[in-house]
Structures are given as C-alpha cells and as structure tokens.
C-alpha cells in the first residue's frame, strides 16, 4: 500500500489484510464461538483466533515486505493457518489463502483483476477440499457471493476499493442468509432440521476476513 487509495495490492497490503483479519477475528472470537456452540462444538472463534495469530507471526518483517510479493505473503499466512488452527477451518482457511496467493503469482503488485482472480481461486480451493456448495450453510455461502459481487463490481467499472467493498457487503449478506438454511456439511449437519434458525459461524468469520480486505484496500 502506498499513500493513495489502492490501485493494487502489494506485499505490505497483503500483510495489512492478514493483520486486519486477525484483529477482527480476535474482536469477534467470543461471538463466533457462541454461534458455533449453537450448531457445532463451540470452538470456532478460539480456533480461528489461534490460526490468524499464527498467520500474523508468520508474516515477513517490515524490511522484507518491501522486497517480497503479495502472493508469497498469502501463501505463508495460509501455511501458518493450516499448521496451527486445527478443526475444519484450519485446512479450509489455509487452503483459501494459499490458493489466493498462488493465483497472484509473482507479481509485485496485484491489480484489481488479479485480486478478483485470487478470490475465485480461494473459493475453488475451499469447494474442492470441503466439497460444499452454496446453500449448504458453510463458509462457501459467504465466499461465493463475495467472489461474484467482486467480479460484477469490477465489470461495472469499480476500482479495487469499490470491488472489495462490494465483496465484503455480499459476504455479510451471504452469511446472514445462512440463518434459515439446514446444514448439509460439517458438524452442524448432524443436527438435521435443528440446524436451521442459526447463523453459520464459518460464513460469519469469512465475512470478517473479507471485511478486513475491504478495510485495508479502502484505506487512504
């Protein structure tokens, strides 16, 4: 990130995203855990807090950030999350970030189109690993509409800041839309019809991570 608002995402921007995601996850950890207790096993907030804390610790130092690539930053963060989180969210979030990082390739700065491709790659990675579709009451219900809204905003002429904002708003709406759904994946699926009427914790945390991206790319 340089002084002006977000033409692209460089390594510092990618690191800022992970830090901001860690802040939001930490601030909301109790809420995520409560959501998980209702339809899962009550550890989502704690686990994700541990994972993103590890991801922040794995970020390159400030001097190195000037030299490295945003893709590499996301891959390192994803690896740390896989290593430290546990549960389903570790592999799923770790895969999402690693796939996003790989999609960014070796560019020193990702432009708005590249960030859109990275979101799409993250979604594909999550779906491949977790085998979930939209409507199954999982993180896909936030990530899929976010990737779609990002692409639509970009097509409509929005810049990086506008597109990430559209993605974050769509993720919020997608998470909220999980309330009436019956879970078909993950531990909540064991509840059958009793899983309805609850916000999905994974979709909620995904909305936070996408809000973090909008926060850092929209910053002056």
């Amino acid at each position, binding site marked *: 990130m340089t002084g002006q608002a977000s033409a692209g995402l460089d390594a510092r921007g990618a690191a800022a995203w992970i830090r901001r995601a860690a802040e939001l996850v930490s601030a909301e950890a109790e809420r995520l*855990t409560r959501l998980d*207790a209702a339809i*899962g*096993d*009550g*550890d989502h907030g*704690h*686990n994700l807090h*541990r994972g993103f804390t590890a991801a922040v610790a794995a970020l390159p130092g400030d001097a190195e950030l000037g030299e490295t690539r945003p893709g590499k930053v996301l891959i390192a963060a994803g690896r740390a999350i*896989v*290593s*430290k*989180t*546990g*549960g*389903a*969210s*570790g*592999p*799923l979030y770790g895969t999402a970030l690693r796939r996003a990082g790989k999609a960014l390739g070796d560019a020193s700065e990702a432009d708005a189109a590249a960030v859109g491709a990275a979101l799409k790659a993250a979604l594909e990675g999550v779906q491949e*690993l*977790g085998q979930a579709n939209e409507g199954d009451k999982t993180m896909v219900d936030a990530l899929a509409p976010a990737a779609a809204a990002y692409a639509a905003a970009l097509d409509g002429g929005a810049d990086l800041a506008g597109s990430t904002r559209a993605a974050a708003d769509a993720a919020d709406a997608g998470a909220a839309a999980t309330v009436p759904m*019956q879970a*078909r*994946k*993950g*531990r909540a*699926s*064991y*509840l*059958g019809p*009793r899983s309805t009427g609850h916000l999905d914790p994974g979709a909620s945390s995904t909305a936070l991570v996408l809000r973090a991206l909008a926060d850092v790319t929209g910053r002056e």
Partner: protein
Amino acid sequence: MRKLINDPENVVADALRGLAAAHPSLRVDPENGTVVRADAPRAGRVALVSGGGSGHEPLHAGFVGHGMLDAACCGQVFTSPVPDQIIAATMAVNGGAGVLHIVKNYTGDVLNFRMAAELAEDEDIEVASVIVNDDVAVEDSLYTAGRRGTGATLFAEKIAGALAEEGADLASVAAVAREVNERSRSFGVALSPCTVPAAGEPTFQLEEGEMELGIGIHGEPGRERVPLADADAIVDASLSAIDADMPVSGSELLVLVNGMGGTPLMEQYIAYAATARWLEGHGATVARPLVGPYVTSLEMAGSMISVCRLTPDLTRLWDAPVETPALRWGR
C-alpha cells in the same frame, strides 16, 4: 465452570505431562501433542497412527502401546490435530512398512489427516487411511457430513493393531480396520452436556427431565431431544436404532457400553445389564463385552453403545495381547 485444571488454555499439554509422568514407557511431547510408543519405529512393521480432538480420553493417547496404536496425535479439546502433528507422529513411527491412519469421520479430522497423508507421501512414507463412521444417529447421505466415528474407533485400533503386531502388510492391516468399521454400529445418549474449558460454558442446555438422543462425542447436540427415560428405555432406544441399521440377530458380538465421562461405572453396569438382556432377547450372542469410559466427551453424562459383528479372525485379534494405559490384557 468447576474443573480440576490450572489454565483453560493449557489443558491438553498439562494432561499430556501427567500421561508422561504416569506412563514413562511412552514418548510424550506435551507441547506438540504427540504420544509415541517406546519401541517405535519398529523395522518392517506397519505402524498405526490415530488422533483427534482431546476431551475423549482415554481415546486416543490411552491406546498407544503394544498391540494397538504406535502413536496418537492430540488436538486441542474437540478440535482435530493439525497436519504438522500428524506428520511428526507418522515419521516417528514409520518402520518402512507403511503407516495406517485411523481417522474418525469428522470434517476437521478428515481434512487434516488428508493433508498430512499427502505431505508424508512426499517424504516417501506409504500411508493408508481408514475412516471410521459407525454412528447410526446420522443419516449417511448427501445432506450431511456423513456418519460420525465413535466407539468403533476403539475396536478398529485394537484389532488392526493386533494384526500389525503379527507382521501383516499395510493393505491387510487397512483392510481389517475397514472390515471392523463396516461390521460396527454405535448410538449415544446424553443426560447432561459438557463444557469445553476454553469456552467456559456448556455446549448446550438440557432442561430438567430431558435427554438428547443420537449424540456425537464432541459435546454437540444430538438429533432429537426427548423426555428423560430410565436405563432400560435408553438402552432399548439405542439398540433399536442400531438393530434397524444392522440387524444383530444370529451374530456373535463385541459390545462396548461406554460411559461418556460423567456417568458413574455403576450406571454403566446397569446399562450393560439391560444391553446384554436386550441382545440375547433379540437372538444375538455377546461374545466379548467391554464396559467403561473409553470414548468420552469430557464430563458429559450419558452412554454410548457400540457393537461389532465378530468373525473368528476378528475375535482372535481382539483377544490378542495388548498393553496400553487404558487397555491391557494377555501380556
């Protein structure tokens, strides 16, 4: 929360320090959450690695030793272990004949073990995986994550461990673990919820006079909440669910009446009496019973019944010597 702990964030490492102190023959790494049998790696023998979230003790670490597991990976409470732990355990026990991962069918466990198996294969370690999914309370369909792994995990670890101890190859050890899983069914009932130490509050609330049918082992609620019933009725509900899925008539059975952690052994025996009576009344023979808290859910009260339809081979392997902290006979 009233728990005999020091720090809610460190319960797993603190408990493993205790395991290490009580069982000096095990190689315990409390910080990384791995427990490895003393004589690993055993050259030319297939090694068994299992693991999962903590809070189910003695599963899995209590089953590490002669005739059962070579290593266990202990995740945070009710949270699967991470790939780093699984790879470390796999490498520690690999004796060149391959490593069998025994994985309970929960999304987190399956994903983390799958990632670890891929990475282990990069290190030229041959890994086979068996998924245990014996819980009949969950419909195995496109609409769920599939049946959960519960009590049959113990059966698979014991029987496959015995075959590995005899020197069988990886394909045979994996095949017998799959066979045990296919011939086993379980059903659990909760009379009270449990509290994850780091969360500090019970995972669900049960009103006076209610119980939860069809629970898993992670303090998650079950499929149905019904009025509290007596032991005979709870056993009848559990075994009827099992029998509807896998008829037991005419079978010689290995039967586990498993306390969930908070139910006294006296009550488990009351449940076992009803279980033996029910099974005999339905044309089955209890060839090998086991009663006790083996696959628990912290301090949850309740019980889970698991049955496995034995064959002469499976019976022989069940009877083979075992020497672990929680199961020990014949040696």
